């Protein structure tokens, strides 16, 4: 771990301004950042501790939605009665991730911004375009069982590891951001993340000095919510494929349809074309087959992760059956 300066932020404004300095990095729960610093994957010059900022509230918004403070821990959010009642997909996704100890420390904003588990990213002896732009991608021809099949580029095939963000994506969440200039803006979660292209080190649309202050959820819908995570062991494993679905039915047809995916792409994945295809139609095996085909039409395996195409296809169909009550 490279020696670094440490500053405890006294306000969101001060934190955002301090982050303008080159080599500055926010620290909240530290569950991801400290590991990466020990590995020297990240070598910040300065840490700005935002963990004590007053961003720990989960509040009802004026429109009946929920404002989740950036520093709300994963444990607290999963246990929040309003989340459990109105956004159960989020609670389930949170509890499907990490371990109890990690969830007690990990924060909402930190979870959104956690880095990939790609082993070549995590090992400084390996080339990695995300860690060292231009050095190459060792995962393309390496061990890529856990890697992405959608949204990849020749520069990077790493996945985003979050469960929470997958559920938030299906809930049409947006991210509240405060800039160093003190301005607050809101960005849809889908727009928050960037695909790798030839700049895999750029993972979000955040600017220098931007501070995530909250995640906003729209008012709850009367919809069936499902989170299904497929993994190599029963707990404490990252998703091979996960699916979050928020689906309502109206007079026998699918009405509101929001489906998002983890483990498949460099960001929590959502495909509006798939949702449009499903909406307004009665549930059927053939429809779900078509939806899964559509989702994976552009999917590409890299050898070790080829199986994810079939796995995602099967898992999506099972989740749609579950959410719509279709029996096989």
């Amino acid at each position, binding site marked *: 771990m490279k020696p670094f300066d440490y500053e405890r932020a006294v306000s969101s404004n001060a934190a955002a301004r301090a982050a303008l300095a080159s080599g500055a990095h926010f620290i909240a729960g530290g569950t991801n950042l400290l590991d990466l610093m020990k590995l020297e994957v990240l070598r910040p010059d300065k840490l700005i501790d935002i963990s004590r900022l007053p961003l720990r509230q989960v509040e009802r918004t004026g429109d009946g939605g929920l404002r989740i403070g950036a520093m709300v821990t994963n444990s607290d959010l999963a246990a929040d009665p309003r989340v459990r009642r109105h956004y159960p997909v989020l609670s389930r996704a949170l509890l499907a991730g990490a371990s109890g100890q990690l969830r007690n420390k990990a924060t909402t904003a930190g979870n959104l911004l956690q880095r990939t588990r790609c082993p070549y990213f995590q090992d400084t002896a390996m080339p990695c375009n995300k860690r060292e732009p231009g050095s190459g991608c060792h995962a393309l021809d*390496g061990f890529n069982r856990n890697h992405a099949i959608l949204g990849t580029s020749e520069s990077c095939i790493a996945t985003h590891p979050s469960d929470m963000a997958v559920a938030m994506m299906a809930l049409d969440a947006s991210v509240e951001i405060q800039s160093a200039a003190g301005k607050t803006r809101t960005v849809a979660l889908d727009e928050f993340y960037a695909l790798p292209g030839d700049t895999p080190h750029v993972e979000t649309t955040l600017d220098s000095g931007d501070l995530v202050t909250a995640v906003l959820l729209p008012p709850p819908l009367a919809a069936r919510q499902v989170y299904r995570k497929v993994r190599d*062991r029963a*707990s404490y494993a990252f998703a091979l494929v996960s699916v979050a679905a928020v689906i309502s039915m109206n007079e026998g047809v699918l009405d509101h349809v929001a489906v998002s995916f983890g483990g498949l792409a460099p960001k929590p994945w959502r495909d509006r074309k798939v949702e449009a295809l499903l909406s307004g139609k009665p549930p059927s095996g053939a429809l779900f087959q078509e939806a899964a085909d559509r989702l994976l039409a552009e999917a590409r395996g890299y050898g070790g992760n080829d199986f994810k195409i079939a*796995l995602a296809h099967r898992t999506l*169909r*099972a989740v749609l059956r579950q959410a719509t009550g279709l029996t096989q």
Partner: protein
Amino acid sequence: MNKHLKMDERQSDVLADMAQGTVGRELARSEGPLKVSGRAVYAAESGDGTEAVGVLVRATIANGRVASIDAGDALALEGVLRVITDSRMVRRPAQGTANGAPAQDTSQVDHFGQPVALVVADTFEQARHAAHLLDIRYGVETADIDPETAREVETPEGKRLEQGAFDTAMDDAAASIDAIYTTPSQSAAPMEPHAALARWDGDRLTLHGAYQMLKYNRNELADALGIHPDNVRIVSRYVGGGFGSKLGIGPEAVAAAIAARAIGRPVRVVMSRAQVFEMTSRRSETWQRVRLAADRDGRLTAIGHDARVSNLPGEAFSEPVQIATHFLYGGASRHYETRIARLNRTCAGSMRAPGEAVGMLALENAMDELAHHLGLDPVELRLRNIPERHPENGKPFSSRGLADCLTTGADLFGWNRRNTRPGAKREGEWLVGLGMASAARSNILSEAQARVRLNTDGTATVETDMTDIGTGTYSILGQVAGEMLGLAPEDVTVELGDTAFPPGSGSGGSWGAGSVGSAVFLACQDLRAALAARLGCDPGEMTLKDGVATVSNRQTRLSDLVDEAMEATGHIEPGDTKQEMQQAAFGAHFAEVAVNSVTGETRVRRMLGVFAAGRILNLKTARSQCFGGMIFGIGAALTENLVHDPRDGHVVNRDLAEYHIPVNLDVPRLDVAFLEERDPWANPIQTKGIGELGISGAGAAVTNAIFNATGIRVRDYPVTLDKLLPGLPG
């Protein structure tokens, strides 16, 4: 006083005549409260705060030489004391019982991740950061990474055996199986990372380390350093799991000792979790071909078990996959061959149940395949093939409860409810099946000594350099002494893990309890004789219980009888019974699994192991050993896979988030039952090794259950969901 026994003949069951009733009881580990409250001091914690800290630096090539190391940037950092490269450092751990560790020039690199230097600093953080700043240049040579394409593959002397007319038996068989199974590299991944703290006092070295076999480790460390073993003391009072990876002295110990000498200050070296995966030892990946031939009734006429395993160039160890195949089942014709591929991968060594852990996966899968092929119940197939005597050398078995384990287990588990047709039982999305496998693990007695002192207050103290690696050694040695001397568990103090004590057997090969337990037993026999002499009677006329000696109707407190501390050393050695009798512990595993028909995820629902392992010294610690083995089996079957990068062989999944050992949620209710058994040929306390028995066959029971659940036979371990998906219903 000294009592020595060479196991040349069967022994009577002396323990059965004792009165205390301590042996066999279900006692919690005596040191448990210290461990769960953080008061048990492990190697890395044994310093006094004055020590410097060393961090090992890894090679980042697979094969070649270190051409140069520029340590300028590292040495310029505050607190950095020294960057050590020394020809005495070792680049691989010693193999179990090696008893020597010739210097291995660390400038020669033969696998990615091996240590090439040690950075020493005032603090751990300084040393770890400085380690990243070394500029190491290499002369790179071509590496062999893949066993399929290795340039050097050898079949050593003694690794080939043919008996009878094997090919003819295969050709003439009414039913036969010829299948190839593969298992990946695995890591012991003990909870406590490998650690050493070295302190010199003149020419004398004291090393607190995490090791399993101190009497060998002392000689290994002395050999590496080029000093006399009398000048080396190793202390390992508590060891947080070893599973074979701490059998031999490791690079951390040698480097710590060299560094401490060089800077004139104690030095602590603790491996990071990633280093434990790439610098210690691994279980070799295996390729196994199993051939079985049987008559119409399922009686085996031939068994063939060929293997290809791997290790670094120059390593004598090879994973002995056929170890149980030799004696478990009959069949007149037999064929074995092992090839060893020389690879630039982390050193392969003994990991819990070397041989059986992976060999029994293949053998017991093949037996399941044969049973299915014949339409015969898998339990029945095994019962029909238990041989009279060792099928290759004709030795009688010292004791063997295999048939009882199979039939008792089948009853307890409800085996008769198994659907004989695979894929026939469905519960919602889940396909449910049952599977079973035999278990066998050779029993070994290893030379051991222990000293027992009867104190004037009527308590006793046991001393040996034996280690407790989490298995319950502290407890069971106290129980043996307590039984023999008539003392409650709390009146016996057990001191372990210090080469200042008499040399025990070390923990490994499942021989610790039987070997050191026997040494304690012998010492106590000597003390009993001395007590009897004081009472003027034969030892057989004296009853010792609760601190009181009773002879006919006369009672004397031990504290009154012992006016000056009495001491005796017991010494056990293997003898003729080792050559004359085939000794092994046996068992049977039963598993119920559910496989998700959508995703291919497998969940073990329940598991039962029934074991016959001679006398059980402590029901609780023995059961826990079996639980641990069964959990290892679940990991081997479903998740564990130490992945080597295809280009440079480096261990890709170097942490516990990505190297998937089972977590609590992967482990269902486990049941263990022990059959009543004594083995008079094994040792005087009539036990057999149990530490590795639980893993033998356990994974095969799980994968056989997967076949029963789905009709899919995966022969490439671990059985992850991607291998099941293609065969599952759409």
